[in-house]
C-alpha cells in the first residue's frame, strides 16, 4: 500500500495528513478533516455536489486524488463566509430561495464563486452555462440563477459608507 504525507491549505489553514494514494480528495475533506459541507451526490463525475476550488479553480473533488492536492490551496463551502458574515452568494441563496433540499447547494456556491471571480457581471445565460456541471433536482435552477445574480449585484455595489 502506498501512503503519502500531504500538506494542503484548506480554507486558509494548513492541514497535514497521511493518505493512501487512492484516497479521493472529497473523502480527505469530509472524513479526515470533518468538513462535511462538501457533498457526494454521484459516482460518475456528473453532479458537481463535491465542487471545491483548487488553487482558485472549480473542480470536482470526487475526481481527484487527495495526494494531487499536496502543496495546493483548497477552498470549500466552509471557507466562504468570513468572520461570521454570510458571503453575498450565501445571502443570495437565502433571499432568493435558491435551495430546497440543499444537497447541491455547496457545489453550486463554489461553482458560482468561481464564475464571479472570472466574470463579475455575468448574464443569465453565462450563469446557466457556468452551473451546467452542477445538478439540482429541486429548484428547476431559476432561483439559483436569481441567487447568483443577487450576489453579483451586491458584490458590485459600492461599499456603504458608515455614518
Amino acid at each position, binding site marked *: 500500500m502506498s501512503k503519502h504525507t500531504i500538506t494542503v491549505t484548506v480554507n486558509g489553514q494548513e492541514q497535514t495528513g497521511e493518505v493512501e494514494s487512492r484516497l479521493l480528495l472529497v473523502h480527505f475533506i469530509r472524513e479526515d478533516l470533518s468538513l462535511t459541507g462538501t457533498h457526494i451526490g454521484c459516482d460518475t463525475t456528473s453532479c458537481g455536489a463535491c*465542487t471545491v476550488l483548487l488553487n482558485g479553480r472549480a473542480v470536482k473533488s470526487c475526481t481527484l486524488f487527495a495526494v494531487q492536492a499536496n502543496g495546493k490551496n483548497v477552498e470549500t463551502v466552509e471557507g466562504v463566509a468570513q468572520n461570521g458574515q454570510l458571503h453575498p452568494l450565501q445571502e443570495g441563496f437565502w433571499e432568493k430561495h435558491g435551495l430546497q433540499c440543499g444537497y447541491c447547494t455547496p457545489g453550486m456556491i463554489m461553482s458560482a464563486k468561481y464564475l464571479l471571480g472570472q466574470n463579475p457581471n455575468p448574464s443569465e445565460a453565462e450563469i446557466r452555462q457556468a452551473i451546467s456541471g452542477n445538478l439540482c433536482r429541486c429548484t428547476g435552477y431559476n432561483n439559483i440563477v436569481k441567487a447568483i445574480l443577487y450576489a453579483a449585484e451586491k458584490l458590485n455595489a459600492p461599499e456603504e459608507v458608515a455614518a
Partner: protein
Amino acid sequence: MIPGEFDYYSPSTVQEALSLLAEHGDEAKLLAGGQSLIPAMRFRLALPAVLIDLNNIDGLGYVREENGHLAIGAMTREADLEGAAVVGNKYTLLADAAQVIADPIVRNMATVGGNIAHSDPANDHPAVMLAYGAEVVAQGLNGTRTIAIDDFFTDLFENSLADNEILTEIRIPTPGANSGGAYVKVERKVGDYAVSAAAVQLTMNGNTCTAARIGLTNVSAVPMRATNAEQALIGQPLTDEVIEAAGQAAAAECDPSPDLRGSEAYKRDLTRVVTKRAIQKAMERAGGGN
C-alpha cells in the same frame, strides 16, 4: 466507490516520467486530467498498479501558433483551450468543440492530451483532430516522433503510442484562406457523451468545395473519418442535394451501437443530421455557399 490500490509518483519533468514509465511498463498508467481515468478506477474498470501523475510537470500546458500550425501542449486544460483567443479567431471547429466537452467544471481539470490519448471514440477531440488532419507528438527516452492522426487510433481505447512514450503535443495545421470548420454535437444533457457529433473542416473556392475532412464522434468502435461523406463533397458545388448526399453517406458508413442514447437507426439518422449541419456551418464560415 473506492479505486483499487496503486503506487503514486509525481515526476517534475517529462524525462523523469519516461524513466518511471520504462521502469513500470504496462503496469503503469499516466494520470493527466483524470476525468476519464479516475471514474474508470472508481468502477474498477481500470486497476493500474502504478499512477504517474503528469500534473506537476511544468511546460506542458500551452496553446500557440508556430511554423504553420497550432501547437497545443498535452496538459493544456480544456478550459484554457476554450479561453485561448487564437482558437476562437481562427480554429472555429476546435472552438465549437471546446465549449461542449463534458461540463465547465470538468473542463478545469480535463486535458486535451488526455482526451486524445484515452482514444475513446465517445470523446470529442478525436473526431476534431481527424477533421483537421492533426499530428501528435510522442516523446520517448530516445527522442520524439510525430504521428499523423490518421495513423493514431488503432482500436477501442488503443492507439499507436508505444508503452514507453508520452503524448506531449498536438499540432493542428493552420487553416488556409477560404476554409472553415464546425463541430455539431447532440447530447442528452451537458456533460454526457455525444449521441452523435460531426467535425467538419472545408476549403471552398466560391461555391465549390475543394477539400473536406469529416470526423464522427461516438458512432464507431474506433474514432473514424467519414471518407465517403468527404468524397461526396470534394469537387462539388455545395448545393442542398450535395450536402444531403454527404449526410447520407456518413449515416451509411458509421457503425453505431444501440444503447440508452438511442437505437442504431436513430443514431445513423442523427449522424446524417449533425453532418449536414456541420457542413452548412463550415461552408458559411469558409465564406462560400448559398
